[in-house]
């Protein structure tokens, strides 16, 4: 339950985006900083809408942010 099968590289992409902070990303996406933290730690899988918003804010496509690893 604590670990999901969707991997992401949001932390790296934030660094490439002029060292965007989690708070900045959260504000632009419309979620809390703790939610961004949980997504980066793979403790929460965001909804499709939030996933698209994250990719849009970071200026990349969805599959550059998230990858699915089946069992």
């Amino acid at each position, binding site marked *: *339950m*604590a*670990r*999901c099968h969707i991997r992401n590289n949001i932390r790296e992409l934030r660094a490439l985006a002029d060292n965007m902070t989690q708070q900045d990303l959260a504000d632009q996406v*419309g*979620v*809390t*900083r*703790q*939610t961004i*933290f*949980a997504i980066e*730690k*793979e*403790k*929460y899988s*965001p*909804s499709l809408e*939030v996933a698209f918003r994250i990719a849009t804010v970071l200026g990349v496509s969805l599959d550059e942010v998230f990858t699915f690893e089946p069992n």
Partner: protein
Amino acid sequence: MDWSFQEKSICGSLVVTAGLFSYYFLKVFEVLASGTSSAVYGLPFVLIGVIIAMVVVEVVYHVLIALRSEPETEDERDRLIEARATRYSYFVLVAGCVTTVGHAMFAGFFDAAGQADLLHGPIMIANFIILSFVLAEVVGFAMQLYYYRRGI
């Protein structure tokens, strides 16, 4: 990772609810242990005092944590955690209500200690239901904290 406003709120509510109602149900147990039917009539006043104390403590606590926290709105993760935790609360509440109904209807058949009048009075039945509500709330709060810490 520091705690969000939601986590602090839930933790505080859990402690306050569990603490104050532990005191209340200790009083209920004392009444049951005394075996005096008339003693139950003091319980509603204890309950009112506990509820007032709970409201005051919760308001003060939430004002304090709001002053010390950044402004936050509830997002999809908060709503999902609340919804998942509510399922467990519901199960506990249903179990408590079913137990209370069973007790009200059938406990007299097994009343070897002769305490049917004490245990079957409306105040005691109400207390069993209140206990169900409190346990459901505590389980709900605990599950929310679990999901916030461990992930969902």
